């Protein structure tokens, strides 16, 4: 493993040691975060799956009704009937923080809350009752559809976050920490080597000085 390109000084060693302990603590924290994110993510995916199934089923049924409506009404009549929607829905998007991920929270308000019979924007004389069925189903599936959007977006955001965290954890685990360890080891060895050289030099000088003393 490659060591960092630093001067083997004592001061450098202290900084590196500090960095090493920070990296270790960071690694542990990130690892915990990743685990927790993963746990929540799995829960959410399960919820997402169920919702998606339910929504798809209901939408399918609605489209089936719609198909039948289009069979008994001509395209022009059908389109004329529904081109001008009656209901207005306002959507309020806020964010919620899950493990430092900002996920959306959608809240929608129907202007005709409690008056479900009024959603039909057309007259009765030229339209088929099958259209009512299709519209009613669509109306009922809307809250779930919105929930699905919310959960699916959250899943995406969390997946991104998990990936980012994993990359950080891995970088710390396989790059930063080994590098630091290596460099610390290298500096220590270098310093020890210097120390030993110093001692040898001192010993040599001592013996030289002793020799000189004897010769006098």
């Amino acid at each position, binding site marked *: 493993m490659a060591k960092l390109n630093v001067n083997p000084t004592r001061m450098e060693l202290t900084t590196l040691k500090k960095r090493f302990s920070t990296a270790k603590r960071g690694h542990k924290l990130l690892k915990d975060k990743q685990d927790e994110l993963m746990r929540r993510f799995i829960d959410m995916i399960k919820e997402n799956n169920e919702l998606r199934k339910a929504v798809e089923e209901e939408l399918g049924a609605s489209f089936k009704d719609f198909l*039948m409506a*289009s069979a008994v009404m001509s395209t022009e009549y059908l389109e004329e009937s529904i081109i*001008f929607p009656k209901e207005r829905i306002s959507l309020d998007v806020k964010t919620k923080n899950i493990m430092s991920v900002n996920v959306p929270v959608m809240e929608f308000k129907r202007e005709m809350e409690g008056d479900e019979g*009024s959603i039909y924007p057309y*007259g*009765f004389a030229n339209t088929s*009752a099958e259209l009512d069925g299709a519209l009613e189903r669509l109306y009922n599936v809307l809250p779930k559809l919105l929930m699905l959007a919310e959960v699916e977006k959250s899943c995406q955001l969390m997946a991104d976050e998990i990936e980012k965290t994993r990359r950080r954890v891995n970088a710390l685990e396989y790059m930063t920490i080994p590098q630091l360890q290596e460099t610390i080891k290298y500096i220590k060895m270098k310093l020890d080597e210097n120390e030993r050289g110093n001692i040898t030099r001192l010993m040599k000088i001592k013996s030289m000085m002793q020799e000189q003393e004897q010769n006098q």
Partner: protein
Amino acid sequence: MDKLIYTQAISRLKVLETRLIERTKMDRMIDASSAEEAMKILQESEYSIHLGKIKRAEEYEVVLKDELKRIYSLMYEVTPVKQLIDIMSLRYDYHNIKVLLKAKELKTPLDHLLIDVGTIPTEKMKVYLENEDYTDFNPIMREGIEKTLIRYRNDLDPQMIDINLDAYMYKHMVSQADELGEGFISKFLKISIDLINLKTMFRVKKQNKEKDFLETVILQGGILDKDVFMNSLNDSMDNLAQKLSYTDYYNILRLSVEDYLKTGKINTFEKLSDDFIMEYIKKSKFMSFGPEPLLAYLTAKETEIKNIRIIMVGKLNKVAPESIRERLRETYV
């Protein structure tokens, strides 16, 4: 009016009647292996002249639209009394008015939704409505448009456009029929209005709307009085058929209610009411004088177009043959 003036038109139509698509051919279309195969069967009918225009079965709407146009221009050609056909084509005028009014309010062009079959050509209609110049319109139509706009601007409810114009449309049709003084046609309209009202009542019931709303959507001019519907709104479905057992509609009501209780859907009633009208129309099959056969042919043709649409939509979306057959309307021949 002199019933003899229709003789020439009738003899011509009697020939054309033989070219209507009969039930067996419809059955063959339903049992065809694909939508393309079903289209091929149309080749053997009057529709063949339009088939050259399209390349794929998905474009069947073009064929149906062209045929509708052709039929109306044919009818205007053969009829000695224009007003007679006007009664039927008014429906398209009002449709066009609805489209244009909605286009105006939405500020988007909706020209593709116009059907150029009405008594007023769509181009003219567009100019008239744009300039709010209704002088050329029939007084009832003019009143209809003006009242509709007032109501719409009051509460900005697009449903009101449809409801109001529907009401005026039937008023207009009835007044035209009254002017014509033909009992057969007036009764035809009355039956249509009754059946629409019954259907409306079912739908309003299903939508859980209150009486006031029903009052605005019930059409005037049928055989059954408005009060009949108003009083029946809160009845249970079973009682409804019993309550109306004195009317001609008892049979179809009974069958529809049975089906409704099973499936929760009103489509049986829609089918049966179309069939009921067809039965009524069929009475004119052996008439050689009077306007009845003209009306009959037009209705027969419109039903035929509806049936082809049901089959084509079913075929293109791989709906089971029984399901298509269930919805198919009674044919004239």
